[in-house]
């Protein structure tokens, strides 16, 4: 029994496990200020998960924001050196509108970014670490992978105007085949319907859409996806699947994107992907891949209500010798019990045993 580890909440335990995981793979922690100039977010508004940003005017008149996102700050602070690689992880509070409450919330977010000369190894490593992160939260996880190259090639092949293209992409995200059919009665949408229907183990899914990805960008994207999932499978990432309904904003993301789920938590807890397009938009001539984990959702992982608030309730009265009482309490905590010492029984307090502290020291209180 280790009282320090036992006292950790599930999300805190996960946090330490993740920190140790990322450090083992050579990632270093990125610390940042709580504030960032608002301009950074205004220029890249669509990259943010939610629209709202809390802003304030600094003493010198600059418009500042409580950071709603960490990735943009990391990109801003990266130095670009040819052939170099930055491997960073972070654990920061961000401030944004939470989906369910539509109000601002402080959200604890952990994540990892790999920026620089991204090759197949670094891509696989980041996705592997995403799978390992989910495994650290709960072995019963699913990590869905998609490839934006496949999705965009199949949608491009329909040659739609921007409005219908956006609508088809959102139907893919909703697995809404009826919607696609209704939007494009004049097009052959069999490829899109196959994308929507295909989900599950990587090999089967990739083969099922192979007929629509025979050449060009679609084929090379699908081949890359097959290569990555093959490597992950060989490294025993059992929860890895393929699902093309993950559709991130193509102005920022490209290549492989992914989303992680834990049984019992009703929304995705991990999201990530390659964002080379974002790097180019911010004037960086390098590639990047990363992911974030929404730690606030892990509250749901609680081990269930604790049966007791404390192991031992020690009752004492006015006549108690305080010196002896402190010694007695310290002896009990030293034995590994949690102890609460007070004068009266508190109705709401649940304790495992009750002891009285009398003139002769600790006595059984029942």
């Amino acid at each position, binding site marked *: 029994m280790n009282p320090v580890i036992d006292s950790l909440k599930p999300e805190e335990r996960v946090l330490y496990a993740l920190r140790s995981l990322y450090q083992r793979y050579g990632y270093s922690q990125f610390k940042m200020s709580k504030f960032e100039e608002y301009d950074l977010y205004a220029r890249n508004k669509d990259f943010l998960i939610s629209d709202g940003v809390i802003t304030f005017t600094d003493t010198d008149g600059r418009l500042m924001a409580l950071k709603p996102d960490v990735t943009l700050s990391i990109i801003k602070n990266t130095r670009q050196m040819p052939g170099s690689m930055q491997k960073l992880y972070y654990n920061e509070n961000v401030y944004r509108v939470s989906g369910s409450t539509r109000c601002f919330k402080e959200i604890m977010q952990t994540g990892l970014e790999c920026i620089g000369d991204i090759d197949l190894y670094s891509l696989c490593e980041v996705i592997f670490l995403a799978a390992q992160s989910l495994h650290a939260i709960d072995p019963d996880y699913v990590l869905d992978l998609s490839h934006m190259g496949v999705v965009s090639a199949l949608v491009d092949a329909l040659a739609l105007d921007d409005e219908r293209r956006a609508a088809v992409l959102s139907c893919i995200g*909703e697995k809404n085949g*009826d919607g696609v059919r209704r939007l494009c009665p004049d097009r052959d949408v069999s490829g899109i319907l196959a994308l929507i229907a295909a989900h599950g183990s990587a090999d089967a899914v990739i083969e099922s859409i192979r007929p629509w990805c025979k050449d060009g960008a679609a084929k090379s994207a699908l081949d890359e996806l097959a290569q990555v999932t093959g490597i992950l499978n060989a490294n025993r990432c059992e929860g890895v699947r393929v699902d093309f309904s993950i559709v991130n904003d193509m102005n920022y993301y490209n290549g492989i994107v992914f989303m992680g789920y834990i*049984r019992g938590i009703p929304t995705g807890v991990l999201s990530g992907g390659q964002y080379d397009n974002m790097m180019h938009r911010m004037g960086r001539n390098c590639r990047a891949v990363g992911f974030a984990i929404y730690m606030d959702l892990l509250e749901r992982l609680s081990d269930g209500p604790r049966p007791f608030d404390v192991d031992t309730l020690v009752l004492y009265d006015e006549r108690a010798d305080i010196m002896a009482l402190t010694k007695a309490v310290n002896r009990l905590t030293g034995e590994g019990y949690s102890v609460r010492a007070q004068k009266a029984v508190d109705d709401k307090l649940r304790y495992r045993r009750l002891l009285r502290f009398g003139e002769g020291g600790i006595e059984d209180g029942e």
Partner: protein
Amino acid sequence: MANNMINVALPKGRLGEKVYGMFAAAGYECPSILEPNRKLIFENGATGVRYFWVKPSDVAIYVERGAADIGVAGKDILLEYMPEVYELLDLNVGRCRMAVAAMKAFRDNPERTLRVATKFTRIAREYYAGLGRDIDIIHLNGSIEIAPILGLSDVIVDIVETGKTLLENDLEPIETIVPISARLIANKVSFKFHGEQIEAICRGLAQQVKQ
């Protein structure tokens, strides 16, 4: 609650009963649901489904937050609240349309801000934004038809089924925004962990859909 049961949120009312009929015909019946009593939750261990009735506009909330694995909600609710769910199937029942309606004598004056009364503020706002029209939204919770009659608004945006209520109040639909029907929706995470069961239900229901 047991882990392997699929929780189904059905909308209370006529549409829900019709949809339950489709589930039953697809092999997911639960006879106790038709008994007249005040129970809220009905399950059939043999078919692995558990039904519960909720307010139609709440179905998406139950599904989005994972209290229900799947549910049936009108497209109007999905467009208005944009829940993070999969929309697996158009059940083609509960058909109606989201429309703009006004007094029969109404003539639009594009120089003035259009006053729009509606329950569906997001749908109305997006529709008029698409037209580039400046509007003043008046959010109401019911009896929308009365707003133009009393001069509260110029037009209303509401669901029109037969148009009878409009007609009786001297109103008429002037524009269709989007056709509406009931959709089978699924929680995204439930779909990851109970995908096979959910897809089997979806296939069964697809066979019951009448075009």
